[in-house]
Structure formats: C-alpha cells, structure tokens
C-alpha cells in the first residue's frame, strides 16, 4: 500500500499509519520552512483524529529550521489561506485531506500571497524535500509558537462585509447544515446564527472527524440533510465538506440541486448584484456557467482542474467570481480561494434579494445532466489508457490541456487523472440522461478494453 501516498500540486496526502507518518510530516514542514524562509508560518487543521499528531510534527519541523508557527487551530481551509496573507506570514500549512476519507490526512502548502503553491513553486519545495539537507537552527535562534487569537474573526468579517448583511438578517431564514463532522461543526452555527441571523438546524455536527456520511458533498451522500430540511421546513440545506471549502445545496424540498450548481447560483448572484467581469472555472464545470455568465454579458475562461489553476487565472485577469464544479466558490474580493462561507452568504443574499426559493431559482437554469465516475487505476497504467482514449476520439474536437477533453457541441467528455487519488475521473455532461449515459458508457468501454 505504499502507493497510498500522493505528492503533487494539492500537497502531500497519505494514509496515516501507512505512508503518512509523523516523520514525513515533520520533514515536509522543514522543507516548507526552508522554502518559505525564516519567519512566521500559519498552521491550521481540520477535525480529523490524526490532525493533532500531524500538527505537532509540523510545529516541530517548522521550529527546527527557524520558523515561527502561528497556530490557527481547527479552522476551515479558506481561513488558513486568508490568515496567511492577512498576518503577513511567509506561508501557511493546512493539515487537511479535504474530501478524502477519514484514514487519510495531508499537508497543503500556502504561499505568502495566501494562495496554494503554484506547480513550479511546489516543484521547488519538493526539490528541497528530496535534498533532505535542512538548515537546522541552534537553540538561541528557535522561535516560540504563537496561538492566533480569534482566528475566524477577520475572515468571517470580510465575508459579512461583502454581502448585504442587513437584507440577509431581516430574512430570518431557517437553514439546515450538514457539517460532515468537520470544521463546520465548530464554526458554521456561530456564522449563520450570529452573523447571518439565521435559525440553524445542524446534522453531523460532532467535530471529531469521524465522518457520519461520506465526506464528498455529492447528492447520494446527502439524504440525511434532505430529511432535516423537510422536517424543519428549511429554505435551504447547506452541505459542507470536512475542511469547509466546498458547498453543495439542497432546495426547500430537501432535493440536492447538484454541487456544480452551487457555483452557477453564486456566479449569478455576484454578476447581477456585485460586479460584472470575467468568470473563471475549470474544464469539468457545467455549461450552465456559460449560460449564466452570458445572461449578464460576461465571459467564462476555463482552466485545468485544480483550485490553484482557477485562483491564479482569476488573479491574472481580474475575475470577479469563479470556482470549481465540485461546489468550490471563489470570490477574490473576500479571498482568492474556495470558501463555503462565502458561498453560503451569497446564496442567502440571493434568497433575500429575489424573495424566491432555491427550487424556483434552479428552474431558471438550463437543464444538463452531469455524470461523474471514477475508475481505480495504477499510476503506471494511466498513460496507456489516456493514449487509447485519445486515439479513439482523434476525429473529435479535443483539448489536451488537462487529460482529454472532448467537445461534442452541446455535450462533452472529460477524462483525467485525479490530483489526489489513484483514480481516473470520467466526467460527462449532456442535455439528457440517455445522452450522458451513452457518452460515459462509450468512454468506459474504451478504458476497460485498454486495461485488459
């Protein structure tokens, strides 16, 4: 099971108790400390039961090379990114395996600009790690650990300032939140109740990382939330992932609208109520985004899959909103990263300003069927499979920016290797269920044939 370690642009992920050890975590922290240069480094984590172990290792690793750890404690990943920039730190380390199952944990590295390391920066970090020649400091140069006081305050105030708080609060919405036993179990109620004036129903709200539902906020994992929405007659259901960067929505009937539509509604709200400008998303995001942007006369720019590619492009072109199809909404004015708190605020603002329901807002959007599948694959098998797929579709309109993207006009197929797991992702979108299944089935048969 040594392959259960992934080192890549999303950081360093592994199964704790196998490849992901305290020694590995400390060693990467040393490499990062050296990369970032001596100075303060923000450290935060999600609620996973292995988080404390990793945190101690990271603290020791950072201190040993002369960095000053600033501890944020158990906070959302977007808060760690926010704090890194707001506190003028040299960098940050987020200890979270995001949507991976409980046995995983990971280190994600943040640059001084509050954004995840770009691929070239990550390469430099990994070079330092592999060199294993760290500039340990002597005792008198060691810097003490500092605990950040009220780590959530700055980030959440920024979110509240961005939206029309008064309008939202006067709506007195009743909402249900599925915290996925993650950081939301600590921070979402205070946010929604005290800052957004909502009446809040929570489920999976024990902050211990022992996930009571599979951590990805995809429709099949959200039945309990749907039940809570109906039982308590909530206007919306919010489903977070364990580290609070992604958000999926359930309408007032408790039906998931699909996590790709979180971004669609957020884009609509930003473009119609806040600012017009270009929208950035990745290749796998639904064509609904193009539709929503077009209604406001705005362009959509597509990037490779991976939060940093989207964030970086947004900063480069001055985009006003963007994000990922997995429920990751990015508003650069708050902070250029995926943030479920920004997303929740925008959805509440949309409800307050339009006076409509989620189901009714969703019905404005064109109907596409999106199908996401994954096939386990060994890293050594991937290139052969991708070659076979490319040959099969060579007469179609292909984009090879990130895996293989086949554009069929009103439908598309995207096949790529996951950045985080040893799997191949197959994503298809088409106007009808039968069409999407047909495309996906074709793709699967090609892949399976090439695996034999």
């Amino acid at each position: 099971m040594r392959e259960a370690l992934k080192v890549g642009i999303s950081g360093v992920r592994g199964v704790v108790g196998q490849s992901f050890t305290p020694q590995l975590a400390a060693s990467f922290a040393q490499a990062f400390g050296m990369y970032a240069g001596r100075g303060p480094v923000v450290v935060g984590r999600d609620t996973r039961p292995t988080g404390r172990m990793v945190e101690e290792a990271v603290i020791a690793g950072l201190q040993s090379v002369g960095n000053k750890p600033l501890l944020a404690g158990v906070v959302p990943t977007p808060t760690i990114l926010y704090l890194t920039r707001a506190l003028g730190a040299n960098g940050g380390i987020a200890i979270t395996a995001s949507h991976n199952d409980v046995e995983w944990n990971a280190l994600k590295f943040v640059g001084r600009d509050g954004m995840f390391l770009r691929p070239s920066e990550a390469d430099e970090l990994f070079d330092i790690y592999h060199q294993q020649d760290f500039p340990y400091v002597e005792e008198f140069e060691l810097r003490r650990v500092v605990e950040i006081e009220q780590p959530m305050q700055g980030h959440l105030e920024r979110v509240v300032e961005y939206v029309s708080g008064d309008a939202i609060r006067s709506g007195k919405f009743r909402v249900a939140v599925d915290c996925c036993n993650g950081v939301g179990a600590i921070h979402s109620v205070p946010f929604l109740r005290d800052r957004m004036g909502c009446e809040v129903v929570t489920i999976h709200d024990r902050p211990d990382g022992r996930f009571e539902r599979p951590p990805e906020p995809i429709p099949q994992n959200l039945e309990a939330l749907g039940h809570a929405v109906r039982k308590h007659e909530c206007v919306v259901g919010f489903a977070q992932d364990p580290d609070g960067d992604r958000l999926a929505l359930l309408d007032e009937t408790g039906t998931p609208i699909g996590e790709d539509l979180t971004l669609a509604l957020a884009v609509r709200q930003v473009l119609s109520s806040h600012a017009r400008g270009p929208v950035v998303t990745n290749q796998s995001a639904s064509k609904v985004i193009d539709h929503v942007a077009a209604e406001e006369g705005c362009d959509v720019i597509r990037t490779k899959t991976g939060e940093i590619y989207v964030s970086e492009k947004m900063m480069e072109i001055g985009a006003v909103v963007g994000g990922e199809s997995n429920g990751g909404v990015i508003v650069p004015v708050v902070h250029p990263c995926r943030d479920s708190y920004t997303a929740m605020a925008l959805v509440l603002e949309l409800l307050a300003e339009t006076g409509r329901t989620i189901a009714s807002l969703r019905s404005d959007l064109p109907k596409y069927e999106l199908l996401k599948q994954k096939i386990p694959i060994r890293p050594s098998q991937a290139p052969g499979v991708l070659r076979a797929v490319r040959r099969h579709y060579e007469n179609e309109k292909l984009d090879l920016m990130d895996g293989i993207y086949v554009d069929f006009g009103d439908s598309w197929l995207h096949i790529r290797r996951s950045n985080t797991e040893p799997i191949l992702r197959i994503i298809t979108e088409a106007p009808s269920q039968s069409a999407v299944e047909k495309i996906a089935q074709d793709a699967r048969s090609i892949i399976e044939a090439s695996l034999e």
Partner: protein
Amino acid sequence: MKTLRVSSFGLRGHVGTSLTVPVVQNYAAAFATSIEGGRVLLGRDTRYSSPMIASAVKSSLIGSGCEVLDLGVCPTPVLQFSTARRDAAGALSITAGHMGMGWNAITLIGRDGACLDTNSGEAVLDLFHAGDFRKATFANQGDAVECNDYFEPYLDRLCEVVCVEEIRRKKFTVLIDPIGGAGCVFLKPFADRFGLKLVSVNAEPSGYLAREPEPRPRSAQHLASFIEHVDGDIGFVLNSDVARVSIVTEEGEQASEEYSFAVVADHVLQRQPGVVVTNTCTSRMVDDVAARHRAQLVKTRVGQAYVVALLADEQGVLGGEGSGSVVLPLFSQGFDGFLMMAIILESMAQSGRRASELLRALPKYHIIKHRRPCDAHAAYHAVDSIGGRLSEWAGGTKESSDGIRIDWEDGWVHVRPSQTEQLIRIISESTDRVRAEQRADEIAKMVDHEI
C-alpha cells in the same frame, strides 16, 4: 562535532547540530513501539528548545497510538513520581538538566518512575536502530491531554515522608536559585506547604541560564552574597530540572555539592537503617556516615539509572550521588531536589542545628574536581591510556569498573569520561588538602598530555 549520545535510558545532544527533530521523533517512536502504545507522561524544562522537542515527541507518541498526559513544564522528579501513580506505561522527560545552553536531552522513564531499566532500554535502542515503528491508523490514533493537577498529590505524599509540622514550626527563611528552570513555578507551593519564607533568585521560568547550571560552590555565589543580609537559614542551588542541589549555609559558605547527599544520609540513616547505594566517585563522607550508622554502603557506576537499579536489587533505603542528588525508594524512584530540600530542612528542624552545624558534623575531607573538555571518542581512549600508566601509582589500589579509581588510606582519585557531556571528569579527595590538589593536578596533566 560528535555530540549525539543515544543510550538505553536517554538521548542527548546539541540542538540543531546533533539533536534534530527526526532523531527525536524516531527515538520517541521507538519508545512508544516498545510499550505498544499505552499511556505516557510527558514533562519538560524551560529551555528554549524544549517546546519544539516536546512537539516532535508528541507527534511520534500520538502517531504510535499513545495516550499522552502532557504535564507541561515539570521537574523530572515530579514527573517520575507522577508516572508511578497515573497507571502509565512510562514517561519522557525533556530536560537539559545540568548541561549548558544549546543542549537538550530526553530521559526515558519506566512505569515505576525509575529511569528505564536496561532490558527495556535495549529494546528501545534496537527498535530505534531498526527504524521499525508502531504506526497507528486513525482508528487507534493516540491523543495528547494537558494535565496540571499533579503537584498537589506530590506535595501530599512528600509531607507524609517528612515531618511537615516540625518544619513549619521553624518558619525557616530559605533561599532557592532554580536557575530559571522547571522548578520555578513550583517553589511557591512547596514553600507554602512547609511554612517557609521563600527568597528566590533566577526564578523566572525563562530557560535563560544566568549562572553555571551545575549546582556547585561556584554557582552558589549569588545566594551566598546576600544570605546573611536576609537572615536566611539555608540556601539551595538547583539545576534546571530539580534533580540536583547544593547548599549555602546561613554564614554564606558555598558548600561543595558533595555535602548534600552526606547530610541527607546522616539524617535518614539515624531513623531508618538499611543499605545505602552511591557511585564510585562520591565523597568518603558518605562511607563514614554509613559506618557511623552501621549501614551497609554499596557502590555502582555513575548515573541515576545505575544507582536506582542497584537500590532496587539491594532493597536499600537510600541512594544518592556526590553531584548533589538523593533518592528515597519509599517516596519515589528518581533523584529529587524537592525531597532533598525537605529532608535537609527536617534535619535542621529536628536536630535544632543550623545549616553550618550540619556540615560541621560531617567528617572533613578536601575534594577537588577538575573538568577537561574532550570529545567522547577521545575521552575513552585517554582514560584507558592513563589507566595503564597508573597501575602502580604511589602504592594505591586501582579499580577500573567505571573510569579509573585509585584509593589510598587518606583519599582517592577518580578519572572518567562524562556520560552526559563532552568532558573528562577528575575528582580527588583526601583528608589533606595539598595532597588532594597534587593528585588532581597530576591526573589533569596526564589528561592534557593525552588529548
């Protein structure tokens, strides 16, 4: 610099040069593996590097499935005492003890509160070298819980083994210099229990070493300079983890640390006869005190681990070393400075003698200690070679179980590589000051020649 020393009961080195985070993590992981998870107590002193080392240790312990009770800044003897009473599988103490700034160390402690026994320690070393560590998954991951309710039970028990009421009645004025170490925050509750008027210096738990860290006459200068002005009854100089003590008398005499154990032995043996254990280079005062009370004295190698282990084998009543340390098995299994202070105060209270009188009641020897800086590998070679040349030195008897010791009627000399520092230690004792000095100087010359 070859400064790392890995042994079966501890790890020490120079921070950043040899004592690095990976070494610390692996050593702690080896210990956690040897006890198969389980509850572990963790304490540290106030050195700048101790929190970092504590984090590294915690990561390994938690990652190996241990339940860590983190006592924070805690003197080693208090940690040892607590280990035996918290149903723990063992403990780690992070402390540089008597070493200078820039150094640090981890001491491994077994479930009985003593330094880890040799067999268990060898198992830790084997695991450390093999790099084969217990890895806990999320399901059996350990945790760390802070614990700060341990000093009261410690004092409660201490008050059972010494007569607290007699000490309280005397309202002693006591000067203590904890050298900014782990003792700092515990001095006040200690003084309150025993009704002491406490005058402390270097009592901010800063980790900054304002003086030489070994309790000895030279490091007692500050206390000695004003003890008469504040009408102090006695002064105590501690090391940074409260394992060693030297005495300053009410007259301002900076007593040799060799007196500390001798004073305690003289007091304890009169009410509780039994076997006493010390090391081969402790003052003959202790031999004479043992003889005075018809107690059997057994000697072993230098080091707490050896003294306490032999004490258990011999079912002795008291152990200690000339470096200023004492262990009382009916109280705990570690060298304990609080215990030593309490026993000396009890001795003063019960005998009605002043500190200077306690010292004067002991046989008079002159003890000279020299230190020569020397790398560990060169030190062993040098001591061996000196041993060869000393086979027939001026009619003395040679003994070489731990370094080289030569005994005469009037005294002895001992030369050995330090277990804890890059040093050769030379000790010479005689009833005649000049002779003690001559012998010490002669050995020092030989050492200088060898290195």
